[in-house]
């Protein structure tokens, strides 16, 4: 069906309608780079001129061979020049984010479960006449139960009988945390996730779970994986052989934690203070490059933690999370990563993103100022023309401030704040020239220009 709003044929061809701004703005941005490369070109031209002067001085020996020799000389000069340029831009690379959040692993507790045989269903089966066919003996109980778990029978049975006894709960939980067998730990994790998130059905009593793990146990597992709760003190450990990263159990740990948070409203496993610490821990996980492949899981988990707070708890907690994080995260690209890993798609995570960025900024200025306008005044007062200006820090400030202001609806619409933010950005984009070769200066300039463009669009 054709919609009445559909364009008439000729309208489609109107380039202005389709993309009115593109060409103009792109040109502008590319223009900046052109300027930079022009600068380089000019430098090499100078060298060329120099070379030409030399040629003129030695005009009398203007034979073919000599020409070749001079060309070679010239090209080597140019090569040198290029090398220098490369070296210069090479320095400009920002180092990567990444902290070894996980250190050395500790020995995990032994996995033995003598009490498994006390599971009532297992006991009652021993006396079932069918056991003549199955032939289950007491010593095989554990491996038999593992089979039940891996193939999914255990879950079906529990859903049917409506109760998870302590022995089963504790056994499966420690498999999640410490089993080296992928099948066992992921089956155990699926088992818990299904039990916890099983829907309450009309006419069917909810599943009774006799034993719940506590946050303390999750935390100590994390410590055994090598997680450093205060890593800021020893970031310098860069030896891969010493810390090879967390065991694979971290995957099931994250999944299980996420589900516990998702059901917190009906089954309170964690206290508010636990969730507060969890949020910090998960954000710290984002800082370790060795687990970046689990981003999807970690984002989901962080989201679950954030949504698990009640409204009242949240108001009390989010600022604490931000403050504590700000005090842990080093002031380099890692602090940006800590801010950007917070998804920002819902109101709460926007809130948190803004708060974390703000607290890190406050920390940057060693807690001298803690009010919004104070911070912005400090930022504006930075003189980018000054020789000692640290552009790496400037870059951090620009990104942090953007995140802080953009996601706080209260601040975003305050005229004073907007004005100051605009001024700060203009300082960075206009006062730093495109030919400024100081370390990271162009990075700051480009970022500020980009943000100014964005602000203009809205």
């Amino acid at each position, binding site marked *: 069906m054709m919609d009445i709003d559909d364009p008439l044929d000729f309208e489609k061809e109107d380039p202005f309608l389709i993309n*009115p701004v593109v060409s103009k703005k792109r040109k502008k941005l590319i223009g900046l780079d052109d300027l930079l490369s022009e600068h380089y070109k000019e430098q090499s031209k100078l060298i060329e001129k120099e070379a030409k002067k030399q040629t003129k001085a030695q005009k009398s020996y203007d034979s073919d061979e000599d020409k070749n020799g001079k060309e070679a000389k010239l090209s080597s000069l140019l090569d040198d020049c290029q090398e220098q340029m490369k070296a210069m831009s090479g320095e400009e690379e920002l180092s990567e984010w990444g902290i070894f959040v996980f250190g050395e*692993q500790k020995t995990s507790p032994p996995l033995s479960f003598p009490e498994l045989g006390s599971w009532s269903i297992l006991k009652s089966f021993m006396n079932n006449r069918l056991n003549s066919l199955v032939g*289950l003996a007491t010593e095989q109980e554990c491996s038999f139960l593992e*089979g039940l778990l891996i193939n999914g029978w255990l879950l079906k049975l529990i859903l*049917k009988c409506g109760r998870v006894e302590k022995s089963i709960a504790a056994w499966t939980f420690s498999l999640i945390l410490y089993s080296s067998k992928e099948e066992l730990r992921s089956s155990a994790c699926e088992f818990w996730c299904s039990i916890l998130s099983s829907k309450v059905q009309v006419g069917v009593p909810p599943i009774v779970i006799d034993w719940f793990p506590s946050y303390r146990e999750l935390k100590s597992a994390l410590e055994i994986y090598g997680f450093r709760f205060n890593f800021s003190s020893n970031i310098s450990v860069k030896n891969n052989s010493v810390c090879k990263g967390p065991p694979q159990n971290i995957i099931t740990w994250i999944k299980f934690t996420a589900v516990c948070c998702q059901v917190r409203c009906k089954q309170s496993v964690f206290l508010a203070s636990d969730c507060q610490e969890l949020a910090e821990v998960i954000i710290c996980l984002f800082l370790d490059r060795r687990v970046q492949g689990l981003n999807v899981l970690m984002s989901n988990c962080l989201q679950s933690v954030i949504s698990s707070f009640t409204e009242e708890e949240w108001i009390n907690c989010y600022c604490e999370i931000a403050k504590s994080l700000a005090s842990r995260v080093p002031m380099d690209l890692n602090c940006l990563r800590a801010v950007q890993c917070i998804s920002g798609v819902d109101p709460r995570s926007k809130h948190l993103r803004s708060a974390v960025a703000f607290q890190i900024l406050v920390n940057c200025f060693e807690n001298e100022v803690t009010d919004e306008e104070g911070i912005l005044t400090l930022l504006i007062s930075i003189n980018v023309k000054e020789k000692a200006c640290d552009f790496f820090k400037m870059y951090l400030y620009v990104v942090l401030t953007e995140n802080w202001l953009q996601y706080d609806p209260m601040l975003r619409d305050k005229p004073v704040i907007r004005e100051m933010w605009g001024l700060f950005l203009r300082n960075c984009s206009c006062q730093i020239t495109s030919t400024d070769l100081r370390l990271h200066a162009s990075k700051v300039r480009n970022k500020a220009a980009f943000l100014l463009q964005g602000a203009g669009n809205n």
Partner: protein
Amino acid sequence: MVKRKSSNNCNRRIRINRGGMEANTLAILDSNESHKDSQDARDDSVDFLEAVRTASLLPENGTPPTEKMVEAVFQILRAGKSLELIMSSYELLNEIEKRFPRVYMSESSGNDSRELVVINEAWLPFVVFSDVMSSEREATPKNSDGLFDVNGFHELIQGLAELANKTISQRVDTESLGNMLLFQYLVNVLEEDFVPRINMYKETMNWNLLRECLLNMLLGSRRVNYKVLMKDCLSTICGLCQDHAGIVDESEHSETSMGKSYENHNTDVAIALLEVQKTTCLAMQKLLTMIMELDMSKKQAHMEGQTTRADGVRTPLAEIILDELTYDRDILSPFLQVFNDPKWKLEIIVQYFLKYTAKPSVRTRRSDVTSEDSTLNRVLKSFSNGTYTRNIIKKIDVEAVQLLLAHAFLAYLSISSQQRLPGMSDCKEDENSSLMEISKDVIAAFNSLRGADENIEISSLGKEALFTAAMIISTTS
């Protein structure tokens, strides 16, 4: 009823904004055209992804990213330069997919019935055109801009099938990881397009809705050997899952009691791989299930005379799977282990048994969902007959029979726990009794196997099935 939206439905101001947004974000990538492989270029890509995210996903009423922007994100995933880029482009693409769906059902308002809304302008990772057109286009290059046509899709799956044959340590590289995530994204796109269409189809019984779905157009292309494609899908899903077992063996020998962490350099890829393999299996299962659902709807539409010759003929996937499972006994166990959609699993197992009973009257119409449990019933009942049992263990070996019985029972249990929806609680009695009956029949079937041959060894899966059946009987009664 299909409502098509095109770009002119959004107002002009938004488009101006989108134009600005596009120019601004793409400029981040442009600045480094000269040295594409450098760290700088990678940093720019990271910045670009973050900028796209910030511009379109974070504002409360953000505008969808333009085609060029999504395409650029997609190209970053395809290029797969680093783990960081792969992961963030993959996440971003899925987020965009979720936030700005291309096809959705409109909310029912007043007396208007719900209709399917299709956003035609949205960017697609696929190039699909009907075969009539493609014969004319033969001259044009196949992979325009690195988008996927059916051949490209097949190549990707072939790559995964090859990967599934490798050992775990051979798989640990960024490229394999990138391909698996790429595949997952493509399946996700197919699913987002398919699900609203089939839901709408079930309401309206209008085959046109499904005929135009991406999946149907992709599979309908005559430029690919459909059967080979499906077989590659099967070997991928079976191969990838078998390797979980491989990991278990490896780590059993390691001294630490926790899962071993991989040696130095590739730790990040290795730990990601473990999870990504699993989600790839799930995506493959999703793809297979969608195709089977499509087949079923097509058959239904055919019976109602809605299909035309242009719809073509395709062997139903369930039949292909069935043939493969009978032909290659080795993949029977891994397939049943990994394929977890209970409805289709049960269907395939029942058909497997029926293949050997040669009683055409037993075949029920596949579209009739309610008949399925009774069909399992009938299969189980036939085991009470000693001659039948002996016959069947002559044709299918006894290991396989136990495997099939146990998995059928598992699938049945899953279906029965899923079907306990609110409002159905009054039939709980019936449900319990049918569960009881099935459990008893499972036990009887195993007893009858034993009866047919005293020396039969009951497999561990069989024992678990018996245990579960016995305990269900004792807790219910």
